[in-house]
């Protein structure tokens, strides 16, 4: 029974494919890929619709107001209304815009965001596209987002768009480093770049209760926090949303987009958020494994999406809590704190590994991280930075 529920989607796909028995090989391959793609799009578009209304609801709750409550029960049909509104809005393209680039930018940004979702294991035997270098694929695809953002900024031929794109690319390049380096310890400890192998390595429980997730080790916890913060920056979320800071540069690289193109950008941002959170779950939170051995009867994909939702809630929580940071603060934080700490995680993971992966390794790696953390906070003490402010260009 458990196994049946756990593998129900895999079975359903096999049943669909069995309709094609006798067809040439490439037809079956194509059909298999298409089923994966449609399932992926269906699930994540639904999740996008849900999270867009839930985010407004949760933010409303945090700010002591109601949030959307007019359309349908509890405002649940709000995304439908939003979608229809976005579809029938006029699509405005600036006269002096670079028409082709302006048109292609939202398509490219959405495509990269969706591609990155393809390599994450959503459940037992439920990786849409299992490739050997899945983690590498994720980041390779993610790195092309910068080009798409540039296309949006440059194609609009607007100073706000260009400034927003510059800011976005600057922070994305800076935070890509800690983001990628914090995955190194996991890859090194597992010895594989495939997400399935990484999830498989986190199976099993110590003492029957503590899961073997990497977040339970000191280096894993530190790397997870760093990864999460970098993910916030990569998906341009508050408090790191300077690229679209409304009070400064209208809407950044999305200024000249309207109607459904704007909605596409919005969707890509959320898809990027899902992808980063999904990878964080895969790398550090044990993927689709249950947190306690006794709870393994619940299907694997339920656990994955429960963890994903928890992370998404933290995203919304952070957005409802923190104000926007300054550009220079973001950059200083990236290069002076995030990067050294990310390297420290590698060293701590090595210490953990060579101390036998047991309690001794646990304490030693905790020691390494604490020493570096304390030293770094001493070194980059920002208090002395706020003496007299000198203006270089605006005397």
């Amino acid at each position, binding site marked *: 029974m458990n196994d049946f529920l756990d593998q129900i989607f895999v079975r359903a796909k096999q049943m669909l494919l069995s309709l094609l028995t006798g067809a040439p*090989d*490439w037809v079956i*391959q194509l059909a298999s890929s298409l089923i994966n793609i449609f399932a992926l799009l269906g699930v994540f578009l639904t999740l996008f619709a849900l999270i867009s209304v839930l985010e407004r609801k949760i933010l409303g709750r945090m700010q002591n107001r109601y949030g959307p409550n007019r359309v349908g029960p509890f405002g649940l049909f709000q995304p439908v209304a939003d979608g229809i509104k976005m579809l029938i809005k006029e699509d405005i393209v600036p006269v002096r815009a*670079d028409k*082709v*680039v302006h048109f292609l930018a939202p398509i490219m940004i959405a495509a990269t965001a969706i591609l990155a979702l393809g390599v994450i294991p959503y459940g037992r035997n439920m990786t849409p596209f299992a*490739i*050997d*270098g899945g983690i*590498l*694929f994720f*980041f*390779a*695809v993610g*790195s*092309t987002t*910068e*080009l798409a953002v*540039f*296309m949006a900024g*440059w194609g609009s*031929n607007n100073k706000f768009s260009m400034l927003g794109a510059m800011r976005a*690319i600057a922070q994305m*390049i800076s935070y890509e480093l800690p983001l990628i380096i914090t995955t190194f310890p996991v890859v090194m400890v597992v*010895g*594989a*770049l495939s997400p399935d192998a990484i999830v498989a390595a986190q199976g099993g429980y110590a003492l029957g209760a503590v899961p073997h997730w990497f977040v339970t080790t000191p280096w894993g916890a530190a790397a997870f926090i760093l990864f999460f913060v970098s993910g916030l920056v990569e998906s341009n979320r508050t408090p790191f949303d300077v690229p679209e800071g409304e009070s400064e540069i209208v809407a950044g690289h999305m200024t000249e987009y309207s109607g459904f193109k704007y909605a596409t950008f919005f969707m890509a941002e959320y898809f990027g958020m899902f992808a980063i959170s999904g990878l964080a779950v895969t790398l550090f939170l044990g993927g689709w494994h249950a947190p306690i051995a006794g709870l393994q009867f619940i299907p694997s994909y339920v656990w994955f999406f429960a963890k994903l939702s928890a992370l998404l809630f933290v995203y919304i929580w952070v957005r409802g809590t923190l104000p926007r940071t300054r550009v220079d603060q973001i950059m200083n934080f990236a290069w002076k704190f995030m990067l050294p700490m990310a390297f420290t995680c590698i060293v701590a993971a090595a210490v953990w590994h060579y101390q036998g992966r047991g309690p001794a390794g646990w304490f030693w790696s905790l020691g390494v991280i604490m020493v570096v953390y304390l030293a770094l906070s001493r070194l980059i003490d920002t208090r002395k930075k706020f003496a007299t402010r000198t203006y270089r260009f605006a005397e």
Partner: protein
Amino acid sequence: MSTAAFIVIAILTLAAALAAASLPTLIHAALSFAVAFVGIAAFFFLLGAEFVGLVQVFVYVGAVAVLIVFTILLTRRDAATPDKFKWGGVVIAIAVFGGLSWAIFLTPGLSIAPPQIEALTVKRIGEVLMTDYVWPLQCVGLVLTAALIGALILVMEEKR
């Protein structure tokens, strides 16, 4: 299947490369160049060299293309105005193409049949990099660190 894929990718790559060479606006050319890089990465995938294909996307689309685009943007005022077609460029392109083809045809032992080696997995590349080629790897790391520090010093100079 793979022949059809080859033809599609080949058309895409060649069209993008041609566009990169002939489009009048510099930024358009740079963006088509990035598309050509993606096409080449797809070729690597088709040949089973997954790692090389991914690194191709990583380095060339993610870094080099962004670098080219920014270089154009920051150094040229007329990035948005179309350039005139230059016949000199055609001559140079044909010369380079001729030279390369000449070199390829002169290379002895270029058999058409693929050599019988086991599939190039990411794991094997990692093992070889960490054992046989560990010194070249360290040297590259050192050079890159030096470049990073040099860039930092160049930026810090301005603050005085």
